[in-house]
């Protein structure tokens, strides 16, 4: 195909802009990595941090991992991510499957009850009082139970189930399978894509857990990773340097940021296509 000058210039503009977007997306994190690896001698020599340090060391990481705070909160976060996601998926599936059956009596009422929570909520204070009344304050469950179902995910999963071919269900029913068996053996087998997508949304949500922790947790031993890292970020110079004077504050802070983001960054490239699919599923609905 023959291209005129204008089109070629336009192609160039597109390519350069896209490269800029790509660089802009990853460069900030790469700089954080660089800061987290810069030894103090180099900071003193240059009077600050540079984009590419000449030497690197892992002192900040060994320092953070040798103290109990980060490893402990890492375990808390892993617990709420694993157990939380399992509970999320079980409860979401158990809601979404019946709601996807078009002739279920009362279906519209139940769907309305789910949708209404997307439009209106009691607010931070009444929710806190209910969580308190159910005895969850200062327990790891306060970061799992109050957010056990995301209404939006119920709706996404419901519409996925609605699009499964009806004949399969009928055939199974004629063979005498109960609804629990149909759900467990047939629906789940056909729903791997939506399960992976919604499961990943829940995983990311739990890994980044912050809000419920600051609302319901006051015991420092139960703080998840994000809360601990935020504490490290807002601490002033003295508080950190008292511990170990040979590592710059910023280096420790950035090492904490990398520790908290590494798992997401590592799995992200492998699961990206599932997440994107979920975004489209969601946006058709919403």
């Amino acid at each position, binding site marked *: 195909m023959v291209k005129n000058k204008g089109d070629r210039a*336009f192609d160039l503009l597109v390519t350069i802009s896209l490269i800029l977007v790509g660089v802009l*997306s990853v460069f900030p994190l790469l700089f954080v990595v660089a800061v987290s690896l810069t030894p103090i001698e180099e900071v003193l020599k240059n009077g600050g941090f540079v984009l590419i340090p000449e030497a690197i060391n892992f002192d900040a990481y060994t320092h953070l991992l040798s103290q109990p705070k980060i490893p402990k909160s890492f375990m808390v976060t892993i617990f709420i991510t694993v157990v939380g996601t399992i509970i999320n998926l079980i409860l979401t599936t158990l809601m979404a*499957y019946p709601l996807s059956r078009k002739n279920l009596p009362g279906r519209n009422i139940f769907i309305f009850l789910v949708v209404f929570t997307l439009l*209106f909520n009691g607010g931070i204070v009444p929710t*806190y009082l209910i969580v308190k009344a159910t005895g969850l304050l200062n327990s790891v469950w306060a970061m799992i139970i109050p957010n056990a179902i995301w209404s939006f995910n119920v709706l996404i999963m419901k519409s996925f189930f609605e699009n499964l071919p009806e004949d399969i269900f009928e055939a199974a029913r004629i063979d005498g399978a109960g609804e629990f068996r149909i759900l467990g053996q047939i629906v789940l087998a056909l729903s791997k894509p939506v399960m992976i997508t919604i499961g990943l949304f829940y995983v990311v949500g739990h890994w980044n857990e912050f809000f419920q922790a600051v609302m319901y947790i006051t015991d420092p031993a139960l703080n998840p990773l994000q809360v601990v*890292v935020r504490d490290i970020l807002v601490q002033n110079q003295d508080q950190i340097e008292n511990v170990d004077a040979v590592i710059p504050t*910023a280096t420790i802070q950035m090492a904490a940021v990398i520790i908290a983001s590494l798992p997401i960054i590592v799995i992200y490239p492998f699961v990206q296509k599932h997440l994107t699919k979920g975004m489209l599923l969601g946006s058709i609905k919403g």
Partner: protein
Amino acid sequence: MNAKTAVESERSLYTKSETKKKTLMTNLWKYKSFYIMLAPGLIWFFIYKYLPMYGVIIAFKDYNVMEGITGSNWADPWYKYFQIFFDSPYFYQLLSNTLIISLYKILFGMVPSIVLAIFLNECKTMWFKRWIQTLSYMPHFLSWVIIYGICIAFLSESTGLFNRWLTEGGASSIPFLTSTDWFRSILVGSEAWQSLGWGAIIYLAAIAGINPSLYEAAKVDGANRFHMIWHITLPGIRNVIILLFILKLGHMLDAGFEQVYIMYNVQVYEVADIIDTWVFRTGLEQMNFSLAASVGLFKSAIGLILVIGANQIAKKWGENIW
């Protein structure tokens, strides 16, 4: 045969309501497994979503920890806490901060994403396009704590990269993160960075739905690429843009609690304090439950009106949101 049917229909006339009840019962029985499945979720929704809605009545009460939600006395007058809020100097400040931050986020969130979607669509080298997509979606999955860390790396007054460049260039350093002049820009900018690629997905999907023959016809008519974007692509996704804009307006009282809470500090309350952060501090840190609940209810109620209004308007564009 005929007689039998006649008898049956006659009987059904007499006992219509009774059979109706019966069929409902058998129906419910037939679907019992479904109700058993629904039970845990419905109980959860009742406790953690609907009981808090009942709990908003503390906005009209003098909430007392000992007496609980039902036991506390009604406020006198019932709108006491709303009055306190409306009369207070922070009413105007909170509302304007929330709206300003939200509107800037909508503007600086949508426009770059739309441009990116158009550029991605114009890029015909598939592997390159996929790389850029993967890279630009990534920030969406980083938590606000991480993004705050990134902001510190660049903007911190003592060690941030920008301030190092400024001071090396002979200028004086700027305390970006504690400056009332800069803080809102940082909120808006960091959110724009986070949602740039992810936000483009939906526009890309909309562009993919445009009829390719339109482009062919335009090419025959001698249109260049820019003409085609202006006259085909943009009009083709106009409805999606308007729809998303309206929906975002519906949520404009949520200016991003988590982000603001993680990034703000006392020095910038004046420009950064939004309704949600104020409710959080007043309710859960100062234990002023009734006042915080009334402000929260004010926000939820206006939010409900905005969302329903947004849905109604959006329906006019022929799209159903739910």
